[in-house]
């Protein structure tokens, strides 16, 4: 079962986000209140190292496990989709203090209420696709 490596990476990710308190509602509130450097430090250091990592991918210095060049997918462009979609996402992030990753990690902590949040998240995805053609992108 070659997918086991992804379970292991997921376990690591769940532990990292739990221990760094990224999945605590309080840390997200504190971030949006600009009352702590913690979340900015986490995202900022991840991105700075990510920029270095991706430049090594692009140069071909780091190859994948098959020895092939690592290709990076471009994100879909669009002012409306990114800004409006982003704002909607941010409203939800500020309200329940959990983005999609933390939702599942919190489930592992046995937080029952998060099942309702995940259900809401799935409804949101369905709803988006139902009205997608009517939205500006």
């Amino acid at each position, binding site marked *: 079962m070659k*997918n086991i*490596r*992804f*379970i292991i*990476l*997921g376990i690591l*990710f769940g*532990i*990292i986000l*739990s*221990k*760094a*308190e*990224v999945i*605590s*509602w*309080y840390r997200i*509130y*504190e971030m949006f*209140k600009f*009352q702590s450097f913690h979340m900015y*430090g986490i*995202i900022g*250091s991840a991105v700075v*190292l*990510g920029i270095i*990592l991706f430049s090594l991918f692009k140069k071909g210095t780091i190859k*994948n*496990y098959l020895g092939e060049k690592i290709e990076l997918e471009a*994100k879909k462009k669009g002012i409306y*989709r*990114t*800004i409006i*979609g*982003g*704002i*909607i*996402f*941010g*409203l*939800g*992030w*500020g309200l*329940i203090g959990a*983005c999609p*990753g933390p939702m*599942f990690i*919190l489930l*592992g902590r046995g*937080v*029952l*209420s*998060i099942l309702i*949040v995940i259900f*809401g998240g*799935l409804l*949101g*995805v369905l709803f*988006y*696709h139902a009205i997608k053609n009517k939205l500006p992108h």
Partner: protein
Amino acid sequence: MDVISQPWPWYVGGPLITLVMFFLYYFGKKFGISSNLESICAMGGAGKIHEHFNFDWKKSSWNLMFVLGTIIGGFIAFKFMTPDQAIVLNPQTVSDLSEIGFENAGVQYLPEEIFGLDALLSIKGGATLIIGGLLVGFGARYAGGCTSGHAITGLSNLELPSLLAVIGFFIGGLIMTWLILPLLF
């Protein structure tokens, strides 16, 4: 053992997130959590409601396995690595929260006012949870990614759409935190 039981500072958490991202790319995949919400919809038979969900979700099973791992990781961290569940907050945050109706901020990992059983069983609390989820799910797919896909991966790849999305995340989060939360609680 203190290193394990204490909360990890940002300069440990951030680089470790990049390390996980590195391994995902090294194994030929990518780092993006919210697309799993699409896969779960497809898995649950949403193809009957909308043709978009007729894609082969099994191709994303590696990502679903990643999510399964995060649930296990959350359990392990909670059960074995976090003897003290308190969150050490800025005293200003604690007093701000108390002003808008959140008692004992930081004593537990999550606020009872949102995630507690009493909140879950109340109309306002249940609505808060489901609307929060709706906004996150809808917004993530509309924007084309969430914190992992846009804020970490997209910014690392110097993508303009991701910068716009992250600016959007912050506009939304600031409106919620500064203007709407004080009205709700």
